[in-house]
């Protein structure tokens, strides 16, 4: 147990040195480290709780996806039946999570039913067909046909929606020019956005919380918006609201859009040359410009509405045809809200609404305080443990302290190598590891003491102490490691940081107990040839 060949001793020291070496980049500024080779650039990342920042979890609105799908499905049914020249008793309508249509019973019914069944596609294309289809088409009797999207199809659509949303969200956030924001999908229907060091989380929420579907629609002048609210609005129009200060003014607009935001190629915040108000300039692509030109040509002198999501931004009167494909939006903007709109328009609209379901924002002040608290606690903890070890074991206590110092340095090395995130609970994990690491030494020393009491000579006692204690150290640390592993899989954010440092701490503790502590002891025994054990 106490003999180490030169090669073995060298290997142990080298391993420890290399692992500790990974902490080096943390002591240099980011600029300096950037000029180093890529493998040497890994460093600790401070968690959002230490450097401040926003953690925002968003979920796609399933109902929104289903509603979009059902509206599209109804239109498909209408088109299919019209193309086949089949008339219906009751028009296709969205009802109870599906589309229902009542056909006339008789000879036509079976052809019509077959046509409708044709709408259902194998899920995931013909090649990867797993027998699942996109729609359930059911003959409910009495000529009634019910068409419902399958759960599998809705799930697939949710997944696609998230896939499409991630790059859009990334574009929006990147426009803010922040350091290392991350956008990740989580599960099938969620997106996690983490932005370190953001001063104003409200702006971030404003950018993330919007679908940003822009539409240019005509204002319906056939009746006033007030009348439409009281009586029945025309079927192809709806009442939306325009915000002016604290008031919300109803505007009756056509449901059909003239041009949509998807046709925009650029949008920039700017100032109106005459009034000095913040505005947003936009540019259409070719098709959009043609459509917008034609629509404005036909409607000179009439008002149209610029609609963002379900809100009217402004409803100006078309003074002259806008043929160049570019224009401007004005409407009670502040500099910031004009900027936000420009960002949203450039990044494009989300395919479905995203709802913020979890938000954790830590201000930079609290982050700094937490760093200080973590530092102070670590130093205090280290001093207490070091002094206690020296008081209890004197020279052997010094050995233990060296082993623990190597241990902590190695934890930081591994964390840096993994570019792991250090959180406040993570620091707590390190401080706790100091306690656990000391335990391995305590186990060894107490065992040695016992062997001495049982009448063994110093050297055989030390040898036997190590042999027996190491088995126990392995057994006892594995239980703590299991708890850390479970915590890693169920935990998020700061708690996960705790699991990571605790887990790594156990591994480095095992390494130091089995190698470093033994090596130090072996050297001491060879140098001193002890007749008695000094504990």
């Amino acid at each position, binding site marked *: 147990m106490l003999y180490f060949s030169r090669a073995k001793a060298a290997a142990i020291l080298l391993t420890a040195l290399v692992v500790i070496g990974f902490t080096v980049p943390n002591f240099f500024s980011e600029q300096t480290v950037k000029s180093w080779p890529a493998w040497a650039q890994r460093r600790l990342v401070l968690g959002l709780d230490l450097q401040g920042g926003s953690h925002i979890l968003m979920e796609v609105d399933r109902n929104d996806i289903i509603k979009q799908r059902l509206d599209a499905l109804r239109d498909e049914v209408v088109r299919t039946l019209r193309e086949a020249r089949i008339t219906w008793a009751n028009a296709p309508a969205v009802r109870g999570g599906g589309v229902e249509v009542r056909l006339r019973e008789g000879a036509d019914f079976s052809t019509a039913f077959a046509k409708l069944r044709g709408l259902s596609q194998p899920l995931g294309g013909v090649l990867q067909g797993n027998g699942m289809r996109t729609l359930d088409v059911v003959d409910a009797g009495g000529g009634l046909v019910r068409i419902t999207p399958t759960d599998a199809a809705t799930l697939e659509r949710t997944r696609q929606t998230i896939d499409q949303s991630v790059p859009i969200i990334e574009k929006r956030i990147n426009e803010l020019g922040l350091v290392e924001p991350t956008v990740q999908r989580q599960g099938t229907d969620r997106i996690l956005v983490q932005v370190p060091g953001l001063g104003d989380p409200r702006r971030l929420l404003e950018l993330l919380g919007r679908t940003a579907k822009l539409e240019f629609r005509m204002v319906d002048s056939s009746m006033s918006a007030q009348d439409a609210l009281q009586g029945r609005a025309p079927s192809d129009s709806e009442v939306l609201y325009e915000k002016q200060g604290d008031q919300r003014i109803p505007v009756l607009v056509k449901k059909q859009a003239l041009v949509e935001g998807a046709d925009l190629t650029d949008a920039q915040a700017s100032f109106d040359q005459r009034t000095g108000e913040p505005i947003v300039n936009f540019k259409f692509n070719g098709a959009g410009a043609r459509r917008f030109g034609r629509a404005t040509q036909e409607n000179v002198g009439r008002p149209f509405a610029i609609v963002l999501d379900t809100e009217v931004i402004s409803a100006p009167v078309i003074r002259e045809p806008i043929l160049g494909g570019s224009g401007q939006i004005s409407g009670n903007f502040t500099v910031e809200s004009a900027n936000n709109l420009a960002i949203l328009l450039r990044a494009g609209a989300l395919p479905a609404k995203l709802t913020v379901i979890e938000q*954790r924002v830590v201000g930079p002040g609290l982050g700094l305080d937490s760093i200080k608290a973590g530092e102070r606690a670590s130093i205090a903890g280290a001093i207490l443990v070091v002094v206690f070890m020296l008081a209890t074991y004197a020279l052997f206590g010094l050995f233990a302290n060296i082993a623990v110092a190597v241990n902590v340095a190695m934890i930081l090395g591994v964390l840096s190598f993994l570019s792991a995130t250090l959180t*406040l609970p993570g620091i707590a994990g390190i401080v*706790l590891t100091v306690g656990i690491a000391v335990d391995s030494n305590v186990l060894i020393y107490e065992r040695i003491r016992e062997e001495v009491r049982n009448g063994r000579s110093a050297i055989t006692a030390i040898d036997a102490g190590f042999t027996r204690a190491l088995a126990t150290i392995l057994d*006892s640390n594995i239980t703590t490691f299991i708890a850390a592993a479970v915590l890693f899989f169920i935990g998020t954010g700061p708690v996960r940081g705790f699991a990571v440092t605790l887990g790594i701490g156990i591994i480095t503790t095992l390494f130091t107990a089995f190698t470093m502590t033994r090596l130090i002891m072996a050297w001491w025994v060879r140098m001193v040839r002890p007749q008695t054990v000094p504990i």
Partner: protein
Amino acid sequence: MRLLRIVPDNTNFDFIRFRRVSFPVSALLSILAIVLYFTHGLNFGIDFIGGTLIEVQSKAGPADIAKMRTTLNELGLGEVQLQEFGGPENVLIRLAQQPGGEQAQQAAVQKVQGALGDAVDYRRVEVVGPRVSGELLHWGIIGIFVAIGAILIYLWFRFEWQFALGAMIANVHDIVLTLGFMSITQIDFDLTSIAALLTILGYSLNDTVVIYDRIREMLRRYKKMPMPELLNVSINATLSRSVITHVTVLLALMALLLFGGQAIHSFTATMMFGAALVGTYTSVFIASPILIYLGVGTGRQYVPDAPEEVAVESPPTVPTRTPAHARARR
């Protein structure tokens, strides 16, 4: 130099006999903890019941909590809790889950920020919607059960099933008492509490395993020693280590508790109670004595690992020093 000796050499405490005291005490405390849990309940944080938590720091001296309370109560956001947090400038504001789904929570934050304006610095804003809080609780509970299960299986493979069962009883005892502690102190029960509970599990088991290891070793070496004596010798032999280790962990936790800041305060307090106090007590007074009832060592047929050791070595200190004594006391 005289070294610090917290536990004298050659202790000879009859832990097995003491079970007549420790078991009823533990049973009583456990029942008390369960009663507390059902009458007082836990002080669930927003992680598990959803809602909003805002930490603000007054920019001009100590915060006027009473005034803030009136301002916020006028917003009609249901129950609003305010408390000083770590210093007179800092106030922690808690809003209950708002009716009206996920968006309503965001709206509530904006209302609070509108009402308090720029007189305060927003150090932390946390909003957890109903769906996320439900999931976090679900996974937290699953995590604890998975951890207990995984550790049990490990112990069952490494030792005998009786040891695994004994460890589990000790485990559940630790968790129950810690929950009782959290109930009586009304410490925030949040995600870090789950972390604390899991660490307590791992840590208290760590300790139990050290003693079990020794018991197993003794079972192999001294095939004829009566069980109560064998358990006593094992516990006494590892006692010094148990105490020293727990003093170091207590010291480390003390540093965290005093200097680690408010954010991990409930975490360290829980750990201190669960791991450093209850955990040690359990492994010494519950986990090992309970093996008597579980039938460890009855009909053991071990071949000694190293027969020559048995021959050379004198038996462990405790029985040699006071064999007659020890036997007479039983």
